[in-house]
């Protein structure tokens, strides 16, 4: 904690550099569509908005705090056992999140089933810990964690929005497609609820993003 305060005094809390950490993961360095991290759990929880939002929040919290803790400990962790140390810190945080979810939003926690536990092996965490927190001060690491969590959440929410809208005609559980549509023959697309469409939706998101930002295109 003391170290964190010192870092704060040296530079303003929201300097341009820190703000960039928050903004970059949203588009140019998006963890899901550019860094290809954390897809494992990203797709399975996007059938509806509600679990997707809860999942995004949980991942953001875990990423931010594990970045903070590892960054604060970074000089005392022997590099040979750092993976184990990181896993233990992350696992402890995930246990806390899991218990909280079970206590306050039990139905969502049931829906997320094993995917809360799988936050531990979510590549975003290990990726950010290795790439950023091990080499930077606690405060920027914390912000980096929040930024990446939000970037991840953004994709999750976009995918969940389309899947819920076209799959069951709802938005966060509220029916939004007018009754009249169904009367003239509109049918919810059942395929959107099934797993394959999550993959294709992400594929399309990547397509749109890369047509807009040329520097992300692969050869």
């Amino acid at each position: 904690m003391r170290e964190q305060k010192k870092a704060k005094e040296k530079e303003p809390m929201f300097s341009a550099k820190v703000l960039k950490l928050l903004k970059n993961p949203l588009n140019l360095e998006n963890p899901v569509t550019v860094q290809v991290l954390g897809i494992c759990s990203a797709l399975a929880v996007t059938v509806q908005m509600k679990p997707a939002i809860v999942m995004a929040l949980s991942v953001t919290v875990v990423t931010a705090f594990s970045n903070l803790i590892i960054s604060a400990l970074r000089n005392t962790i022997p590099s040979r056992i750092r993976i184990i140390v990181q896993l233990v810190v992350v696992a402890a945080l995930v246990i806390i999140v899991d218990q909280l979810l079970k206590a306050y939003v039990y139905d969502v926690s049931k829906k997320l089933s094993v995917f809360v536990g799988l936050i531990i092996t979510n590549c975003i965490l290990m990726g950010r810990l290795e790439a950023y927190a091990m080499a930077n001060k606690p405060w920027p690491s914390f912000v980096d964690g929040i930024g990446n969590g939000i970037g991840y959440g953004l994709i999750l929410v976009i995918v969940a929005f389309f899947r819920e809208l076209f799959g069951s005609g709802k938005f966060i559980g509220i029916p939004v497609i007018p009754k009249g549509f169904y009367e003239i023959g509109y049918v919810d697309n059942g395929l959107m609820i099934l797993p394959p469409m999550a993959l294709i939706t992400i594929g399309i998101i990547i397509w749109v993003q890369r047509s807009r930002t040329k520097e992300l295109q692969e050869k």
Partner: protein
Amino acid sequence: MDNLFNLFVRSIFIDNMIFAYFLGMCSYLAVSKTVKTSVGLGIAVTFVLLVTAPVNWLVDYYLLKPGALAWLSKDLADLDLSYLSFMIFIAVIAAIVQLVEMVVEKFSPSLYNALGIFLPLIAVNCAILGVALFVQEREYTTISEVTVYAVGSGIGWFLAIVTLAAIREKITYSNIPKPLRGLGISFIITGLMAIAFMSFMGIKI
């Protein structure tokens, strides 16, 4: 016996780790550029699953489940340690992966060279922890069920990554729209493969 075979087929085709649960996607997308490396990784994942899933099940069954410690003494019968399972599972997996790495290095250097870089990565492959957690959630009751399920999931994962690698090798020369190249098209191919795999749904032997 029928039940086990059914579980085996189910875990390969219907509950496929990649196509139905998206587990292990990170390495699935990153390592599927050539068939050769993806075969190596697929075998490594299957092998690690074969070892870790039964061990994790034993740990869960005899130590963590509500009332699991009853065999130790009657006072501990109402103890529920299941909240520790995430940490214990990941520790077991990390330790076993390390062990497997050392054993393979000692006894089969050629296999070690083939798998080398992938083995440490497997510790953080979601498919491994995923199987351990699914086993816990679905409450399998015998060790043979767990082993069969783990091997089946491993083979399913192997099948998925090798097929994707084969397709990606083929499409290197195709004229794909620029923004879709690489990652984008891999996602869409995986999606189409998942739709194909859905035709196995409902199979029962």
